[in-house]
């Protein structure tokens, strides 16, 4: 089985107190903030590694990011991926979700056939949750989002469990496919010290725009249809109010408050 995991390097949440917004470029200033694997992508990678342990095959990690993101891909290799490809070029810089999905798709086309592409449902920095669906569209495969479980039986359609608001749907699906996962799908493994040493033997391939076939003009800031109108940190208003009493009293006070506010 050939599984590709799309991984986005994001600013490590442990250092978010140091994050700044650049009002001119309307982007996050990531310089000096250590990167890490987007948390849900870590779950996607864990799902891929578990599947490889069950079914055999290989796990490839693909990312579109600046070249200094290599330590993040090294971490993905240390978690157990077999190979990593970093799509990195000035031409790709400033891509919106469409541009990102497009660049990932041309990179994946160069990698050849696959059974499964796994993504995290969304990232903790952008949070658009669009890339997996766009990627599936570019690659012409089915897509299921919010996946919290995957059942693979050889010779049968796969079963993907997709979370919805009040339950889940079970989707029968045949490979190749693009799935994006939610955190309840698994608990990602720790990187062990032995894994860190093994990862040093696994190279990271860096592909520029010249290494892939860009037949559409969607890569980079110029090719991205999204125009950022503004970017700002919301003002903290500190409106929390603690409701006291036993659970019954609290429920009554809350219902009364909601009623007065016109909600019920």
């Amino acid at each position, binding site marked *: 089985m050939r599984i590709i995991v799309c991984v986005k390097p994001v600013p490590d949440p442990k250092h978010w107190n140091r994050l700044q917004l650049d009002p001119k470029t309307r982007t996050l200033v990531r310089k000096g903030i250590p990167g890490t694997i987007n948390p849900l992508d870590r779950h996607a990678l864990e799902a891929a590694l578990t599947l490889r342990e069950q079914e055999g095959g290989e796990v490839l990690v693909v990312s579109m990011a600046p070249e200094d993101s290599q330590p993040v891909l090294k971490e993905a290799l240390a978690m157990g991926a077999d190979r990593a490809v970093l799509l990195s070029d000035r031409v790709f810089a400033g891509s919106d979700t469409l541009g990102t999905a497009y660049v990932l798709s041309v990179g994946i086309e160069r990698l050849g056939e696959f059974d499964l592409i796994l993504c995290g449902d969304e990232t903790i920095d952008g949070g658009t949750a669009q890339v997996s669906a766009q990627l599936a569209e570019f690659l012409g495969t089915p897509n299921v989002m919010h996946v919290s479980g995957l059942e693979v039986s050889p010779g049968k359609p796969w079963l993907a469990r997709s979370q919805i608001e009040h339950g889940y749907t079970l989707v029968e699906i045949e490979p190749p496919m693009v799935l994006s996962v939610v955190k309840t799908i698994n608990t990602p493994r*720790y*990187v062990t010290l032995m894994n860190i040493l093994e990862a040093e033997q696994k190279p990271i391939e860096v592909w520029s725009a010249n290494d892939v076939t860009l037949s559409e003009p969607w890569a980079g800031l110029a090719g991205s249809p999204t125009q950022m109108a503004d970017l700002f940190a919301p003002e903290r208003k500190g409106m929390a109010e603690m409701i006291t009493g036993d659970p019954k009293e609290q429920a009554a006070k809350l219902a009364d408050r909601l009623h007065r506010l016109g909600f019920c």
Partner: protein
Amino acid sequence: MEFKFSDREELLRKTVRDYAEKEIPPYMEAMEETGEFPVELLKGMGQMGILGVITAPEYGGAGMGALARIVVLEELGRVCPAIPMAIQVHHMCTYALSTWGNEEQKKKYLPPLCKGETMGVVAVTEPSGGSDVGGMQTTAKLDGDKYILNGRKCFITNSHHADTWVVIARTGEGGKGLSAFIVENDFPGAKAGRKENKVGLRGANTGELAFNNCEVPKENLLGNEGDGMTTAIQDIVQCGRPGMAAVALGILNGVLEQAVKFAGERTLYGKSISKLQAIQWHIADIYADLEISRLLTYRVGWMIDQKINCAAESALAKQFACEAAARSARKAIEIHGSYGIMHEYAVQRLLRDAVVTIPAGGTAEIAKLVMFRQALSMFGL
């Protein structure tokens, strides 16, 4: 000179930090209350490679070296210093077995120690004192195909949880009359005795090991007869003191985090106390202590990996970092005011933990003696 960590060490730090932050806190309250090490953590730390960080891969370790070990201990200590206290002594056991053990001994004892199936200890200190290794009184007498050990070791970390004990005992007269033995905790006549009730590092269990006609098979002699002094001293220099310095680094990390956090949150006179110069100077002092301790300790790790003699540097790192941890923890308590001496705030525990590091693994005075001798040797004296 290169003062930057490699990608390997950065990833190592990140992964151990992730592990420590998630896995250790659920045990900390019970550790403080009971004074017991959470042995449930050993298996996970074995799988992570933490227990075998300095052991060669052919014996189940990661073989990453002394500098990597310091990073591992520092990150564990940032969350809970008692954990690396216990683990650093476990490492002293694996170091002794790796360095002086024969092939059979290494194959038998190292893999379970690296996996966390067993816990290790090195026992040198006796009731008569730990600094005076030559004055040791525990005896080992050869009787046919076994040695008979008699005596007591005290203030031994991991005493009541360890399965594999490296014990130094007297087989002859003088400094050359000491030998090292591998003792299993269920050998006839071996017994963990009194449990100590320490003020700090409470989750690292400390107590006595007693030998009452303890029968140790002859093949469990570690190295040669008469090598015991070298085993004890080298294990302390190469493993014990750098390990204690790394525990202190962990404490210093915790102290700085707590100090900065509290100073930022606490408001007095209508503004954050971090705006007050008195508080700023305390934080600057803590920061300086952390950074100086890091440089000294990482250098020792690097020197060990380069196989450079570092007896004085190891003593300096240990003595400075442990005293810096105690000094800084006190400053952090001052920043906290009365909150700092309440059990709800971590700084009081960090001070208690720091104070315990000072005599552990060799007193500050013994470390200074080593430094004094080094200083004289620089002038041919």
